């Protein structure tokens, strides 16, 4: 049967049962829309949120620290009683098989204040500062200054600030004081002064124990180990040397050890412990978070699939009733010369048209809802570093997938019962 002839029959058959046709399209549309939205949310969980979690808690990275003596809720790591983390230990660990990189984290061993203005708010605050190698934070650097050491006295010190600072400002101070919220672009390039040796909590230090450093923010990080202000390690080494002498220049707080693959994890952890140090692994945290996110995504998809299954059962039942009514019509078509495949094309074609129309309407509506909701939430919610860049997946490929699902699902739902009918002798169908 040619396409023009199929269209001739389809148009008349669909028009004849207008109410039932529209009801069927509506039912498919609702089911597909629900599935589309559930899948859109699941996809964002699996991509955006999981990526953020894996970036914050990289499974292949372990934090190496000095052993702490825990007294209830408090932990102490007195230098006399615990192994120190030195450059030699860092080199030793870097030489282990399967180790990709070892980055030291050097604490600023003096009180420090940050003073400046931010969105109209003038203030000072005590800060914690660390020095790390440039390569460790290369991905977080955005500003033109870069994250490199310069011994020029006029060149500001590049620093990276924790995103959680920005979150705390936006969700706390800005909300409370009615200040404008900060985006990444508003923070990058800002200057402030770091006053080494000074603190709001102690008495004023002598002038030779205080030093003012001009800083420029060149990046933001969501690494939970870098909660304070992070500067190139060369600067912190120099400041420690100035404040406390050579010994403090290379006394690392912790090492960030990254492996090439997880198969080397246990061996590396054993070596770390044999050196009298402890491993603060992110593997377990990462696994639990991944499990939770994947589990949530699976539940969403299962819900969507359940709705689709209910719709499919509905379509099958409805079509079974329609087939009962149309036995005579099928018998007549076959009696006047329609082949089995031709009759199948007509009947399954009707179902496919309904399925495709319903899926297009439903998925199109869901797609529109996803786009609108993303825009609205982006405007309405305050900027928050852990929030995904979008809340619902709005790619066209999901729309196309759902449309195809409606088409194929309708065909599969109806083809078996249509085939059963067209295989019968026309006289038997006419007699019923």
């Amino acid at each position: 049967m040619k396409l023009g002839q199929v269209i001739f029959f389809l148009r008349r058959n669909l028009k004849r049962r207008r109410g039932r046709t529209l009801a069927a399209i509506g039912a498919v549309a609702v089911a597909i829309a629900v599935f589309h939205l559930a899948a859109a949310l699941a996809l964002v969980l699996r991509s955006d949120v999981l990526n953020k979690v894996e970036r914050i808690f990289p499974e292949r990275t372990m934090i190496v620290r000095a052993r702490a003596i825990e007294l209830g809720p408090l932990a102490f790591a007195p230098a006399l009683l615990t192994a120190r983390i030195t450059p030699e230990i860092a080199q030793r660990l870097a030489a282990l098989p399967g180790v990709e990189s070892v980055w030291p984290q050097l604490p600023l061993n003096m009180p420090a204040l940050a003073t400046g203005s931010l969105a109209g708010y003038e203030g000072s605050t005590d800060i914690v500062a660390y020095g790390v190698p440039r390569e460790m934070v290369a991905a977080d650097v955005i500003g033109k200054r870069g994250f490199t050491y310069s011994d020029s006295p006029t060149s500001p010190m590049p620093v990276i600030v924790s995103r959680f600072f920005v979150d705390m400002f936006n969700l706390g101070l800005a909300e409370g004081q009615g200040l404008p919220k900060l985006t990444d672009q508003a923070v990058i390039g800002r200057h402030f002064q770091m006053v080494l040796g000074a603190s709001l909590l102690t008495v004023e230090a002598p002038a030779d124990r205080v030093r003012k450093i001009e800083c420029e923010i060149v990046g933001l990080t969501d690494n939970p180990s870098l909660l304070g202000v992070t500067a190139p390690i060369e600067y912190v080494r120099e400041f420690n040397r100035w404040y406390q002498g050579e010994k403090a220049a290379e006394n690392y707080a912790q090492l960030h050890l990254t492996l090439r693959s997880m198969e080397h994890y246990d061996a590396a952890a054993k070596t770390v412990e044999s050196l009298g140090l402890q491993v603060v692994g992110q593997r377990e945290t990462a696994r639990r978070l991944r499990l939770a996110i994947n589990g949530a995504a699976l539940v969403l998809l299962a819900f969507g699939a359940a709705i689709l299954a209910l719709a499919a059962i509905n379509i099958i039942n409805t079509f079974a009733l329609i087939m009962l009514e149309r036995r005579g019509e099928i018998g007549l078509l076959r009696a006047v010369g329609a082949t089995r495949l031709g009759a199948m094309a007509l009947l399954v074609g009707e179902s496919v048209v309904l399925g495709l129309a319903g899926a297009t309407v439903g998925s199109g509506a869901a797609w529109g809802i996803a786009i609108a909701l993303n825009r609205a939430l982006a405007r309405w919610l305050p900027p928050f570093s852990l929030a995904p860049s979008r809340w619902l997946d709005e790619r066209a490929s999901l729309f196309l997938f759902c449309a195809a699902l409606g088409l194929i699902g309708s065909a599969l739902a109806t083809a078996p019962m249509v085939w059963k009918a067209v295989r019968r002798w026309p006289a038997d169908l006419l007699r019923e």
Partner: protein
Amino acid sequence: MRWGFLDNKLVQVVDVQHAYAGESAGDSWVLCGISLTVHQGEFVAIHGRSGTGKSTLLHIVGGILAPRRGRVLIGGQDLFQLGDRALSHFRNRTLGFVFQNYYLAPSLTALENVMVPALLSGEPVHRARHRAMDALDQVGLAAKAKARPGDLSGGQMQRVAIARALVNHPALLLADEPTGNLDEQTGGEIMDLLASYQRARGLTILMATHDPSVELHATSQLYLIGGKLQAGTGAVESAAN
């Protein structure tokens, strides 16, 4: 597929037997060895009481029901050895079927009902429409082309069904009680219409009927009694031969 008519024999029914599956008393045999030959151009009427198997015989000859045993040869071809495509081609091009209950699609107009076999034969829509209009004109219903079956009388619906059966100019027309649901006058008109086609086109007609007016038109008459055919008037090869 081309149907060759060997020795002018269009239809040969060879020892056809058929039964319907019974629930408690076993199968119910309605045809107990029917043999029949219909030559090209003949008008054969089959008489018999209701339930004797007339419709069943016509359905088997029309290839829309398979017999339990026996063969049906159309132009020398064994009908039930054909694949689905070939059998469908036969039903569409060689055969026209007129049913007692008309079986018109209620959602299609009279014209569209007649177009169905033409469309199934592969004609594009505009050509099928043209042919269907011609066929309706020949049965005197061109003015009712856009009417739906629900708006037509019994006689008009049967005329539409005849137009549908003949739109592809078949060689063989099977008519199953075509006047069964009509009054005497209308039935007579339908019978006259079929007879006129038979004369004008050399159409071969095999008709199951109770209508006595068929005597005026049929070239031969058979009686289906006890599952067997018995000769009536006219030259016919019976099971006895």
